[in-house]
């Protein structure tokens, strides 16, 4: 559980930055090199590389080791993990309120279980 939480912390802090989110959106349309990623932003390739490093540490992207240009690719698996986290939290609140409903009905003494 701790390992998963730590990974999620990396993922969420990586996603806290709007530039990094924009980079991920760009990569969702296809792999790209640092030069290609730097173009739409008013940023140096060096600045983009820093963002890529954060995304790589969070394993939201992977980079080819072989090609000279080292194109970046989106890592959908880790995105899935974080999305799953949100879904679980929603489910926790939904279940909690179901039980709260039942508890309130019990307090009213009508034994009614509201769906």
């Amino acid at each position, binding site marked *: *559980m701790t390992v998963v939480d730590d990974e999620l912390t990396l993922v969420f802090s990586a996603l806290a930055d709007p530039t990094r989110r924009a980079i991920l959106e760009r990569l969702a349309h296809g792999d790209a090199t640092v030069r290609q990623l730097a173009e739409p932003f008013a940023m140096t390739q060096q600045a983009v590389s820093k963002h890529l490093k954060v995304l790589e540490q969070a394993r939201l992207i992977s980079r080819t080791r072989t090609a000279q240009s080292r194109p970046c690719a989106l890592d*959908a698996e880790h995105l899935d993990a*974080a999305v799953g986290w949100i879904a679980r939290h929603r489910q926790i609140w*939904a279940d*909690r309120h179901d039980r709260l409903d039942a508890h309130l009905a019990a307090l009213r003494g009508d034994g009614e279980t509201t769906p």
Partner: protein
Amino acid sequence: MTETGELTYRRVHRASRELLFDCMTTPEHLTRFWGPTGTTTPLDGITVDLRPGGAFETTMVNDADGSTYTMRAVYVEVRRPDRLVWIEAGVEGGMRTTVTFVDLPDGHTEVVTHQTNVPAAYLSAEARSGFGTSLDRFEKYVTELP
């Protein structure tokens, strides 16, 4: 971006704001409904120090194997019966939960739960298009929730 970074859950209950606020902040009530499905939250594992800076901790016991998980939070805002805010420092760099109690007609109350520090990219419509299957699945999941 201020709105999209939030996970929001809304539910209407047939009870007053005061009662709902008390349910959320009294161990004797919390033990009845707090823990996730498949767990129990024993009374002696609940700490409520109801003031800004006070502790809000719940230990949840897994029904199947007896393992425990403790949520450790600190209250930030305590305003009966309008609003309750706490922060879990150890979760995702600081998870902030805000619960708002909205008065509705006929003795009903809407409880609105916001959890922030949830990444905006997952929830913003603009970002969603490119992310493909995982967000599609998430969307489907959310719309199918009761």
